[in-house]
């Protein structure tokens, strides 16, 4: 009779999952593009201090990292609890820093070298002596542009 009479059963049809892979792929590509995979595992504990006057590190590829802090639990037996320096994936001495900087420079394009930044990720409770020595080595290696890595202070005045 009526043109609009519903035919067949009244069950709601199942939602088509044919487009599910497409949606997931879209998400996948998003994450693949935005990802920067952590390439070092931290051997030292670093709890960064807070600060308010932060600048973002724009080009991650131009940043070399120096970690300083007390060794993680599993290394305490070997290295003790005093703050240590970590370069790449191993513990290092202050005297290793110039070589590290040179190696970092060698792995970049020549035109990019003046824009390189050294990011110091130092634990809050480290004594300044070790930091002072690092800064001296960096000055000797002419890696003058540094960034004291820190967290954003939550309470803003």
């Amino acid at each position, binding site marked *: 009779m009526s043109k609009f009479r519903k035919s067949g059963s009244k069950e709601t049809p199942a939602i088509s999952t044919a487009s599910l*892979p497409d949606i*997931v792929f879209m998400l996948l590509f998003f994450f693949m593009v935005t990802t920067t995979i952590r390439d070092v595992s931290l051997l030292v504990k670093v709890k960064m201090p807070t600060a308010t006057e932060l600048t*973002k*590190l724009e080009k991650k590829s131009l940043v070399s990292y120096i970690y300083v802090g007390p060794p993680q639990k599993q290394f305490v037996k070997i290295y003790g609890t005093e703050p240590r320096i970590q370069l790449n994936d191993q513990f290092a001495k202050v005297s290793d820093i110039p070589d590290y900087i040179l190696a970092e420079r060698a792995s970049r394009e020549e035109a990019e070298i003046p824009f390189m*930044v050294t990011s110091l990720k130092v634990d809050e409770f480290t004594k300044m002596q070790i930091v002072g020595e690092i800064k001296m080595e960096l000055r000797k290696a002419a890696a*003058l542009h*540094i960034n004291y890595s820190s967290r954003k202070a939550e309470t803003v005045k």
Partner: protein
Amino acid sequence: MRKTPEIPSASMADIAFMLLIFFITATSMDVDSGLERVLPQMPPENQEQDDTPPIKERNVFSVLLDANNRLMVEGELLRVEDLREKAKEFMMNPNNSEHLPETKPTEIPLLGNIDVTKGVISLRNDHGTQYGMYLSVQNELVAAVNELRNEFSTQKFGKKYEDLTSEQKEAIREAIPSRISEAEPKTIGGKK
């Protein structure tokens, strides 16, 4: 010709999900940020005693940090919270006080004749100072300069410092220089 059977694509979603979960867990989204500083250049080794004239006492804002994380500014103990105001007062010298730094009128493009301070902030820490304390002091000093620049640019251009063009920024930087010098740290007291 025989038709090749179609590859079932039902498991496609599962595969994609697996990859997706891998990338989600491996991602670190946090942007690295920190306090940016430029270290002074190493003096050439064969340099004789430098012949730069000594800086006058009133032009130096001395900030000392000892091994017990105490802060001494211009000979007085001070809390970190008060450092910013003190540093701003030093840099601006609003009342032309005798004890605060001299100013030198300088011709700056876009701004005209501006009294530029000759003040230098000198920061010295002990070998035993904690890094967290050192950084918060650095932060306060940088904040003082940034606030002054912001105030000055609002007054001159009606905009915040970050929103200025690069020439305007250059002018503001010249009008309010950021001279924070770090002296060689000392060990005060025998304990290392």
